[in-house]
């Protein structure tokens, strides 16, 4: 527990260094807002999602997030077509319209769109140090996922399989919702290593 706190505080600390034009990451699952006043929540952004910081206002930062969404479901963004690392889930696809960047049809005949959104998040949701976010997941993975059974090898399952497997095991491993995200994002960072990031 002690270690978790140290890591968390360092994540918080690093947010103060954020400035416009910089690239950052979401440090933990966070709400996203329509405006800088933080009043209208329009969805959630996932832990470890890379963002570009556009501007600041009070405790809030305007961010740009780019990802792939299924045709008609552009409010749910993934890192890539076929690699389901969740980035963003907006409550609907009406409140905020994205900027369309590209289109693709995958081999299962599903149409995808690459889009970007500009949204607002609390500055506490941001970090510049992604390694510390992954480290949080790594620590949980090695300690919690190897006590009932042997620690599985990460390469044994795929980017897409892992989230469901962790979901199925979360109660037995005593993982909170955020713990699940830390582990999932850490593992998905490993499984997608070296693959193209469109």
């Amino acid at each position, binding site marked *: *527990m002690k270690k978790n706190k140290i890591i968390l505080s360092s994540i918080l600390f690093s947010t103060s260094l954020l400035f416009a034009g910089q690239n950052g990451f979401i440090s933990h699952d966070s709400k996203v807002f329509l405006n800088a006043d933080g009043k209208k929540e329009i969805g959630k952004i996932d832990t470890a999602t890379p963002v570009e910081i556009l501007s600041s206002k009070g405790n809030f930062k305007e961010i740009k997030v780019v990802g792939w969404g*299924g045709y008609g*479901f552009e409010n*749910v963004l993934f890192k890539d077509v*076929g690699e*389901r690392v969740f980035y963003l*889930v907006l409550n609907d696809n009406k409140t905020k319209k994205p900027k369309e960047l590209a289109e693709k049809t995958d*081999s*299962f005949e*599903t149409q995808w769109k690459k889009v970007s959104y500009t949204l607002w998040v609390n500055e506490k949701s941001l970090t510049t140090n992604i390694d510390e976010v992954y480290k949080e997941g790594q620590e949980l993975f*090695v*300690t*919690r996922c*190897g*006590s*009932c*059974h*042997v*620690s*599985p*090898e990460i390469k*044994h*399952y*795929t980017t*897409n*399989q*892992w*989230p*469901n*497997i962790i*979901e*199925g*095991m*979360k*109660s*037995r*491993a*005593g*993982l*909170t919702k955020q713990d699940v995200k830390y582990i999932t994002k850490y593992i998905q960072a490993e499984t997608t290593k070296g693959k193209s990031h469109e």
Partner: protein
Amino acid sequence: MSNIKRRDFLKGSGVAASALLVSNLPADSLISGPIANTSNKISASHFGAFRAHVKGGQFTGVTAFEDDPFPSPMINALPARTYSKTRVEYPMVREGFLKDGHKSDSSKRGSEKFVRVSWEKALDLVTSEIKRVQKTYGYKSIYAGSYGWYCTGKLHNPQTLMNRMMKISGGYVGRIGDYSTAAAQVILPHVLGSIEVYEQQTSWPLVLKHAKNVVFWGANPLVTCQIEWDVAGHGAFPYLEQLKKAHKDGQVDVYSVDPIKNDTAMYFDSTQIKPKPNTDVAMMLGMMYHLHTTNQYDKEFIKKYTVGFKDFEDYLLGKTDKTPKTLKWASNICGVEEKVIKQFAQKLRDEKSMLMAGWGVQRADHGEQFHWTLVTLACMLGQVGVPGCGFGFSYHYSNGGTPSADAPGLGGISTNINSKKDGPWKNYKPFNIPCARMVDMIANPGKTIDFNGRKIEYPDIKMVYWTSGNPFHHHQDRNTMIEAWKKLETFIVHEPYWTPTARMADIVLPATTEIERNDIEVIGDYDSSHIIAMKKAIEPVQESKDDYEICRLISKKLGYEEEFTDGKETQLDWIKEFYANSKAQAEEKGIKMPSFDEFWEKGFVKFEVKEIDKNFTRYEKYVQNPMLNPLGTPSGKIEISSRVIKKFNYDDCLHYPSWIEPAEWLGSKESEDYPLHILSPHPKYRLHSQLSNTWLRDLYEVKGREPIWINPKDAKKRGIKNGDIVKVYNKRGSTLAGAIVTDNVLPGVLKMDEGGWYDPSDASEEKTMCKHGDVNQLTIDKGSSKLAQGNIANTALVEIEKYNKEIPAITVFEKPEII
């Protein structure tokens, strides 16, 4: 490890006198304390939680935990097991190994005498062997995949403790998967995006409310839900009772698809469909052919929630292989009448149905196909994600479907080393093999095998290290295994008992049982109803030590005690840490938990079940919104055919579910010589081979031999009568057994439970007959396919005859010869 500190902590909870104890042991150790010195501490096991009666320092009886709705009889045998004649009392070394070390004659394993040594000597021997092998051959020469189900407890997990120690020493070869579900847990992530087999099921209350048909397909929950990986809570039993009542009242139909009329089928008096062993896939294909050609399958479900149906459809209709999978085709293979197959398919389609499938069916050649085919059938029935309906692959395991309590998790010891030192573990990169390929690996260094799209090259194993597991019961093809074992330089075992495995060891270190140490555990793998204290009730029997202690002492000799203990002074420090972590999680979730001291005093914390968890339906979210809740497959949908598997291009696992003939079955050529198919399901009064060394044996054995079920027709042909001692054999091996002639087994099929202790007639002789009833004398050591490489225990043909020679005495429940 200071006993005094622990006592101080336990002050007031009635620690028994620490007098020497143990029966069947040297006379001077039989002095127990005054009988009026009693305690009644809470503890637990895979069979359930209980209070331990301790009188005069000895464990004399149990009372089942008050919250257990269906205590298993197995807990009653725990005192007997503690003082069993088969207890390993002292550190032991095989005579030849003590003399010549790793250069000893390894063919003497299992037949040579043992020599008692001091702990100091034994630990020195073990440590120097580990160092020698690590230094000479590297960590890929040590197999420490140590598999087994020995005990519960988050600290005293012998395999993890040993892996932790072995990692510190430089690493080891480990295992992937398990013996239970190897084929299913590899195929299902391709099909459903998750492992499925160890995941919570649609809740029993919803099944009882909605399903009109409940099908136990190769599943026997009445027997197998007696045990759990954590502490058995038996939460499913009240629901099974309700199902029985609903069935009796005509509200629901219960089916059992199994060549054996098992305990569950008897309990429900269910409608029995008996396909020939290993032919379930063919039967299901016939069912699907019927649904397809009568235009009755759920096209909407297939279109919306699955991908790749077309390739399967072409196969089903015979476009791919010119063989339409008609009812007649299916019936010819599986032996079930056409009209029965048709009616069954029709009933499942017309009414709300839940298919509860077990795992024994996938412990067979091409076992991957069973669960894949069943998922496909369920998709064609279109009831996946519907409350109480669809399919479930874990109702028979750990009381799956019992609604989960709102509880925190409970962590345990792991192999994670917190140290800044540049120790030997720094160069270790995990290297694992599919667990049931262990013997193949030892016998064939350098051989490359396929596994789920990758290639694995076998390393050259010189040492095997096993903690509290019994591979000489659970691995297939005993005689091939014994031959392979001769290649090893060293075989080290930690064991409380002289199991067939301990008897094969070079060094045996006596380990404690659960009742001799403190620990903490969860009740209910899925339902997490309680966290329970497992309290030390008696002192270690004779010179036994906890696995934790053994591994700590070896780590100390390696120079890394602190890395092993993580700087903790006592075992209780770990237990307190696990509890504190749970408590912190609970607080985050708004659940109240008492302080550790209060918990330890009371012995348990109970958690409540929320309404939402009573109404859990698997795949409900997916069916509601497949885009937002995609499955973990490449397409995000259920994959009836898989492009990933197609790319692997395996001949023994195509890219859609299909019927592939097993290596041996009643329709194969081998059946001319060996006309009977032997199945080895889970025993009623054992956990695999555990408890075989207690009086429970008297409840099921026939003349001291493992029982074998044989159909009256097959028995008559061979002049076998009820209670006869028989010899079961094939080209791989032979064993004696006790015949039970019964209609509960299909003609052509034999049932002999797994886990009977291997008792060689003459351990120095090759392929010697087992006197007692080890079914793995007869099974095949082969991977299920290139995809999963799971064991195929339920694929084996044999012949059986009345044994007319002199009946040899059983010796495996005595101690081996000790100098």
